[in-house]
């Protein structure tokens, strides 16, 4: 069903994937399941947070914020209820890792959330699963029920006197709900529009209470970090980007797949050694290294590490770990259009530049893709992207503008070629030079 593993993988989060019935608690317990939770309880909350800080784990949802620091922001002694929310609204084009984690090892996620619950002195957690992942909701519900039976969730967990209830919440189709504050609005039954920040979810999250919100992979990583120690995780990546991450390689490679790789992996290594390289006879045209929101890289820019800082330095981002590879057969104009169609469809409509900007960009790119318009339109795309970038309410506008701007800047020639090719076919020769 999914891709076979790669020999280059470092299997930490995916260590139980090959185990038979890996999604069951029996399989989990047979492979050190919930040892991390037990250890966390023994360590105490402060030590847990320090351990996560030491692991240099950075959020796997897209922003790459240091997880330990995020955990330290939660007012754990607040008299308000504290909530743990897991973002399983995986929707970034190019990304399909959270799905695998939940499907193969839901207990690793539940354990990570429980560790967070214990650490934050929380009694309630939610896993927000995108509506399309319905089967994962059932898997999670079964796994949660098993955990209750083993007193790993529920009342007086493991005799500590601490209670923690965990629920699964279904989304219903909205990319914007991957943005943490929009997710919280959605979890409260509202439209998935983002909230003003500050205040941040750490203090005013779900129901205006302190809320720890992390991505599926981040919680799973916590489970293994606490169990095996920060150093064991951190060593797989550069200093400020600890550990492994599930890298989703897709597009024009011979072995697309999800591979757990150290963050010290480089992009050429991932493409060539892990992803099996390009198809025979093809050459590299471009790579989007961090999902559809990341600025595109030209082949000559691809000699870069896949950790957060290296990609940022290269003018793009690690994002959610979706690496999309385009070879010379790719139509970059159609590709740009497809990106902007996505963001236009998903723009929540809250703010003007994103709502109107994505719509306008889509209209222009539709024209250009049909070979209509002029090079002035290509310039206009670049200008509109610039006018949107950094000025929208949330990062969705940036996510639309950033790759689009980079594509028209780096592939202006492709637009020119496409326009010329189509117009040469359609416009009678005697009219070409008029005006």
């Amino acid at each position, binding site marked *: 069903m999914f891709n076979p593993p790669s020999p280059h993988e470092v299997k930490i989060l995916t260590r139980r994937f090959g185990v038979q019935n890996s999604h069951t608690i029996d399989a989990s317990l047979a492979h050190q399941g919930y040892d991390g939770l037990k250890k966390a309880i023994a360590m105490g909350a402060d030590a847990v947070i320090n351990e996560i800080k030491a692991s240099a784990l950075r959020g796997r949802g897209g922003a790459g914020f240091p997880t330990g620091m995020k955990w330290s922001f939660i007012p754990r002694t607040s008299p308000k209820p504290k909530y743990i929310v897991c973002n399983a609204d995986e929707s970034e084009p190019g990304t399909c890792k959270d799905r695998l984690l939940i499907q193969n090892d839901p207990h690793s996620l539940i354990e990570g959330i429980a560790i967070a619950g214990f650490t934050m002195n929380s009694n309630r957690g939610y896993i927000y699963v995108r509506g399309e992942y319905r089967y994962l909701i059932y898997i999670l519900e079964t796994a949660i029920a098993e955990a209750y039976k083993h007193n790993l969730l529920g009342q007086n967990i493991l005799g500590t006197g601490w209670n923690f209830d965990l629920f699964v919440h279904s989304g219903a189709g*909205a990319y914007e709900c991957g943005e943490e504050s929009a997710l919280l609005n959605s979890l409260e039954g509202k*439209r998935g529009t983002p909230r*003003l920040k500050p205040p941040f979810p750490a203090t005013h999250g779900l129901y205006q209470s302190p809320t720890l919100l992390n991505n599926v992979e981040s919680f799973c990583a916590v489970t293994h970090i606490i169990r095996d120690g920060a150093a064991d995780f951190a060593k797989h990546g550069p200093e400020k980007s600890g550990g492994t991450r599930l890298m989703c390689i897709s597009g024009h490679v011979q072995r697309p797949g999800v591979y757990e790789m150290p963050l010290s992996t480089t992009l050429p290594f991932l493409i060539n050694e892990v992803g099996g390289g390009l198809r025979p006879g093809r050459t590299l045209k471009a790579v989007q290294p961090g999902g559809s929101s990341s600025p595109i890289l030209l082949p000559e820019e691809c000699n870069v590490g896949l950790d957060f800082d290296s990609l940022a330095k290269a003018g793009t981002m690690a994002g959610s770990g979706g690496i999309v590879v385009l070879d010379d057969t790719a139509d970059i104009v159609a590709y740009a259009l497809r990106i902007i169609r996505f963001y*236009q*469809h*998903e*723009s*929540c*409509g*809250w*703010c*003007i*530049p994103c*709502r*109107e*900007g*994505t*719509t*306008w960009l889509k*209209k*222009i790119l539709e*024209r250009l893709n049909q070979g209509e318009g002029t090079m002035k339109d290509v310039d*206009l795309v670049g200008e*509109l992207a610039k*006018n*949107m970038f*950094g*000025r*929208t*309410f949330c990062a969705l506008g940036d996510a639309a503008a950033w790759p689009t701007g980079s594509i028209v800047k780096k592939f202006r020639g492709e637009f020119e070629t496409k326009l010329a090719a189509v117009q040469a076919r359609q416009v009678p020769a005697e009219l070409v030079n008029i005006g």
Partner: protein
Amino acid sequence: MATTTAPPTVINAKLNGQDIQTKPGTLLINLTKELGIEVPAFCYYEGFSLQAACRMCLVQVNSSPKLLPGCTTIVTEGMVIETESPLVVEARKSMLEFLLTNHPLDCPVCDKGGECELQDMVFKYGAGESRFVDIKHHEPERPFSPVVYYDPARCILCYRCVRVCDEGYGVNALGVVNRGVLSEIAPNRGDQLNCDECGACIDICPVGALTSNTYRYKTRPWEMKHVGTTCAHCSNGCKTTLGVRNDEIMRANNRDSSGLNEEFLCIKGRFGFDFNHHPDRLQSPMLRIDGDLQPVSWSKALAAVAAKFNEVKAAGGKFGIVASNRTSNEENYYLQKFARTGLGTNNIDHARTGDVVTLVDALSGKQGKLATMADLYQTKAALVIGSDLAQQHPLLAYELRRNWRHHQARIYAMTPGPVREDKYAAATARVAFGEEIAALEGWREQLAKEPELLILFGDSIKGASLRQLVDFGESLGIPVKYVALVDYANSRGAIDMGLVPELHPGFVPSGQPGLTLPEMLDDSQLDVLWVVGANPLANRSQANPKAFVVVQDLFLTATAARADVVFPAASAYEKKGTVTNVTGEVQRLTAAVKTMGTKTDLEIFGLLGKEMGLELGIWSPDAVFNEIRQNVRGYNVTMPILATGGAAPTTPVNGKVNVETRSDLVHSAGDTLFTSGSMTKYSQVLNTVAERPGQLYKPV
């Protein structure tokens, strides 16, 4: 020893190169406003929740690599702010460019043209040419209600309407549906509104997306004269600005938020002016000739009345004068003078709607006990007894809600049925009329813990129970202020001007007997019944069917139909003068229009007095008000406040009234948001909205 740093009391920052100082916690957009520097915004609206959605107010701040919205950025120490830098100017221009991509630019036929915030901004900050050449998204215009129309194409999604309805009015009748560029505003009943029909959404809309069905496509803003006056309907005294063209009121609004009601108006204030040009308006005096009322000249009608009045007066006959809850203070004052000195009678009364007299008496000797409108917004706790405030006193309800939103005021509601305050009140109780005083004891402990309290009470609290209420309030040991709720635009002024037998103006005991309103009607010896702006015979007859009846009114009411002489009176929108609202604030009436053939009640009094040969003084509104200022205690108000359209608080007598007042006659008509006494019949708007007339204690 631990040291604590005191929070700074002043913030130093730099704005466009100038060193400035401001209070901690100041929003950048408010700072610029204070300093007279425009930072344009659509979604920002003072007093409502922050959206940061329109991105028009983006400014440059040294602490951020990105431009920041001025509406959500708090000015901090050392901040360097640029609101006119090339980057900011360019961002503004591009934001408008985005906005216009789906805007129809149908300004020539748009009602908002000429007073549209988008138009203004594009004019000032926009690009000269459009780079958008594609097809615009368009959805057809649709009615949300008989008064509210929505044009989604023009909507810029600033969410002001959603917020004013939800946060402001507590109605929550507007929401946002769909997503992205297809997002639009939607009403709460699928395709229709079920709400207060207040039209606040229309006025607050910065563009022409929400328009008023009573105004749309009728005129342009610049073709109208804009006349600020006081609403003619309930006692709350909202300022309303009438848009007038060719002696016709085209619309009413309060877009400049200049009155004590700020952005607030209800359906009556915004749409209920239409009674004024109802075809049934009386436009000629009428005299009963051969049993029928027939149009006659003013001189003939005045002569007939003067002759009759002089005849009855000479014969020592009995007059009964029924005064109005709606006429101006000047008219009220002049009428009681007419009665008492001109006709020599103390038989003057009006339909009393709140027991202000007992309240003033019960508070004898105490200072500052009568609340002003500002207290509704500022007092930390308020107790509402026996009134469905949102329906009967919508501005008071709005102010209390605003107080709760902005200051977390604690509201207590003791009413016979559910009220809108229930949703946010600190405590609510369902108590039948007449049982409130006993029930209040249950709240004593809680209320005594409040730092201060405002008590608003309806007509179920009067006489003895009102004295008990004041005893209760004064025994709490906290500062307490009171509001006696009264019904109509000048109900309070009617009492203040002595339109009751027991009082002269200014709560001075008359010391003379006099017939009350029911007594006049029950008196089989009554010779003359003179009714000014009232309809006492709506549901009953009078004991002496032969009494000579004179009526001054806008319409041929049941009482007017029974009259011997009818004078066509001018409405509140057609006269100059003052009225006093429920919280004792005097405000100006400005003549906005004229209906042919009518005269103001004051002019009618003056002409009649002259015809009778009486010496009652000049009857110009200014002269009479001057007399009121000199003679009526509490009314020596500051003129500039009035002259500039403000509300001047009156300070009623601070001593024992010492009269036997007829509290038993106090009775509120119980009008809802969609009724307005006998004017209801003549307002098409009040009759066409689906909610009409509604029921009290059953919130819409």
